Structures are given as structure tokens and as C-alpha cells.
């Protein structure tokens, strides 16, 4: 009996030897090889910088810098983020003996929204080279700081874009409103902005 037990133990030990273990089927994850392929470069959106001009009611035209980011959300839709800064006032306004707007106020605006390509087509002058163009409607909402006061900002406008292989350029026009009480009292809480931008893809 004891001998049989020892023989069984020896057989078990032999079966657990490394060579025997190596023959045990142990499946692993199989790869289809797609991960080994190089990723195709992806264009996510457009980054741009440009010149913006703001013409508020009861105020002079004010220049500024505009930085934009557009993230493609489909064939026609994109998300839009904007940052604009520049002068807000170069002429003081006094009401009832009190200066309600000074002659050196700065403006900072940031807003986000969406754009929708209303028209898309191709422009060509020579016929040898064709440049895609897009006319888009853009709606944004955000905040505008003007001098020492601020208010919520909303705009609706259009953007005409020409898309090159490496760079793009755009012309934009929009109507805007700011719910800043001080600007409302000055009747300068709305107006028109236009901008010209140049940018690249990312």
C-alpha cells in the first residue's frame, strides 16, 4: 500500500515537471494586427488668429485681436471657442458730472458656441487650382469684460472660410449683445463685429 502511494506521488511529480506544464494549452489574447498599423493623421479642427473690429452703438470702432478654435463635430457642424481682446473706449463719457466711461478702457471677451456650414463649394480663378469654401452660421455665448464691468455676451453671425491644404482664412461678421448694466445705460450694449483670421489645422 505504502509502495503504491509512493509510486503515485512520483507519477504526480513527473506530470508537474516544466516540460509537461509547457504542453498544457493556455490560450492568450489574439491580435488582429490592426494595432500594429500606423495611425493615420487626423484633423480635429482649426486654430486661428486675426484682427477684429468692434462697432458698438454710441461708441467708436475699436480694434482688437481675436483667437479662435473650431472643433469638427461632423460634416457640417463644429464647436467654436473665441477669445478677443482690445480697446473698448478711447473717448470718455460723462453723465450728470460723473465719468461713466473713461478714455482708456480695455475689453476682454471669451465665448463658446457652434457653427453650421450653410453652403459649401469650390472657388477657382484659373481652373488649375480649386479651393474649398464654406459659409457658416455661428452662434456663441460667453462673457465680456469692458473696463471695470462685465456681462454675458451673445452673438449671431456668419463666417466665410477658404480652406487651403495647410492654412485657412476666414472673414466673419456678427451682431452681438452684452447684458452689462453700465453698457446698457450707455446704450452701448450691442453692435456689430467683423474679423479677418488666418489659421492652421490641428
Amino acid at each position, binding site marked *: 500500500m505504502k509502495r503504491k502511494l509512493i509510486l503515485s506521488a512520483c507519477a504526480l511529480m513527473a506530470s508537474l515537471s516544466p516540460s509537461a506544464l509547457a504542453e498544457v494549452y493556455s490560450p492568450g489574447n489574439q491580435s*488582429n494586427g490592426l494595432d500594429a498599423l500606423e495611425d*493615420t493623421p487626423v484633423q480635429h479642427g482649426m486654430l486661428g488668429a486675426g484682427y477684429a473690429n468692434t462697432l458698438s452703438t454710441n461708441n467708436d470702432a475699436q480694434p482688437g485681436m481675436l483667437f479662435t478654435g473650431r*472643433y*469638427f463635430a461632423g460634416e457640417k457642424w463644429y464647436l467654436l471657442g473665441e477669445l478677443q481682446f482690445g480697446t473698448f473706449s478711447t473717448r470718455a463719457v460723462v453723465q450728470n458730472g460723473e465719468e461713466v466711461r473713461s478714455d482708456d478702457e480695455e475689453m476682454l471677451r471669451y465665448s463658446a458656441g457652434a457653427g453650421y456650414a450653410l453652403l459649401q*463649394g469650390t472657388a477657382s480663378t484659373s481652373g488649375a487650382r480649386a479651393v474649398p469654401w464654406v459659409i457658416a452660421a455661428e452662434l456663441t455665448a460667453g462673457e465680456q469684460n469692458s473696463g471695470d464691468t462685465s456681462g454675458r455676451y451673445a452673438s449671431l453671425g456668419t463666417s466665410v472660410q477658404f480652406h487651403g491644404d495647410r492654412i485657412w482664412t476666414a472673414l466673419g461678421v456678427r451682431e452681438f449683445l452684452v447684458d452689462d448694466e453700465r453698457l446698457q445705460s450707455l446704450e452701448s450694449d450691442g453692435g456689430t463685429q467683423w474679423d479677418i483670421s488666418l489659421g492652421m489645422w490641428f
Partner: protein
Amino acid sequence: MIQAHRLFTSLALTMIVLSASLVSAPRASAEQVYIGLRNGPSEAFPVIYEVTPRRHLEVIYRRGSWVKATDGRSSGWLHVDDLHLLETFPRDELWKLVNDARPGRVRPEFVLSSLDAYAVGVVFPLFSQDLFARYTRGPEGETSWSLTEFGLLNDFARPVDDLVFSWSGALGYGKDQQGSRFWDSETDDPVWVGTAGAEAMWRVDRYFEIGVRGEVATTLNSEMTTHRSASLVWRVRL
């Protein structure tokens, strides 16, 4: 009479032979298929270049579900779903592009609420459920407040392909700021807030959704301050 019978027989035989030859004869030539490459990544852009299915094209880059392809001389845009028409295009690269262009389940969102607040958040999958994290900020001034919440989003109806109805439940942390009494009438201390809502989201583009949401938020303290809101929601599928 016999001549007429012979004439009729020969005519009938000729017709039968002709019909048989028309049925069995192979077509003279198959119609040539051309694949149009567009000037931009949308069907609204015109086709500027056509290639045969055997033309060797290389993909330069992808934008959404469109790829820009070139044969070395000319280039144009092609939808990833049309890549299989190119007989020489590598199948593994094709499937990788199709897979990469598929909309993901991670969805950043931007919300405008009837409480004069805006919110940013993200919906993300975890264990086959959609969870979300969101930060809501009330207006500046005497009623300034914020809410940071984390919750579950669950679809319950899809009447058509692009429209989804969902309910949501979340637990958050509400905070009054600048002396506001939005959440708590006595202190500025943060309070736990529970929210429940329902939303309808419409997928307007491959990676983009717009929708509306109704929500009720209640503080989980003895006051149980409740706020109801309706919101506009924009979501992007990454």
C-alpha cells in the same frame, strides 16, 4: 400552301435561335465604375477627380468620417464607407480607418439652463453604463452658486434612430458663493444635492448631438431646497 408553311417554319426557327443567342451571349462590356473624389470632406463639395477601382490611392489624413487620398498627382476627399470600392486599398488599413471613424461613447457636453446657469460636463461609459460628471455655475452677483455632480444616465426609449430619451440621477455638492442663499438659507456651507432628470437628445450629425433636459435638484438637508430647470444641451461624441 406548302411554301407558306416552310416560310413560317424557317422564320420561327430563326426567331428561336436569335432569342437563345441573346439570352446566352455574354454582355459586350461591363459598365466601368468610377469613384469620385471630392474637393472637401462633405457630399456638398463637388467631385473634382474620378478614379477607377484599381487605382492605387494613399490616405494622407482623416477628418471625421472622411479621408483625403492621393495617387501622387491629384488628391481628393472620400468617405470611409466608400474605401472598400478601391480594390487595391489594403483591407487591414481600411478596417482600421472605418473603426477609427466610428463615434466613441465619451461625450463632452455644454449646457445652458433656465436658472441663468451654464454647465460643462462629460458622459463616459463604465461597465456598459453611461455615467456623467458635470459642473454647473450660476450667474455672477448676489445669486452666485455652483453644483458639482456625478451620476448615471440611462436610455429608455429610441423612437427613431437619431432620437434618444434618457433619464438621469446624480449626487452632487452645492455651494453658495458671494453671500448667495441659493442652496441654503442660513449658511454658505456646501450641501449635498440630489438631482433627477429626463432628456431628449437628437443626433444631428455623426459626432454631434443637441437636446433638451428637465431636471429637479433638491438639497439633502432638513431644508430640502428644490430648484427645477430646463436646459439646452450640446454634446460631442469623441
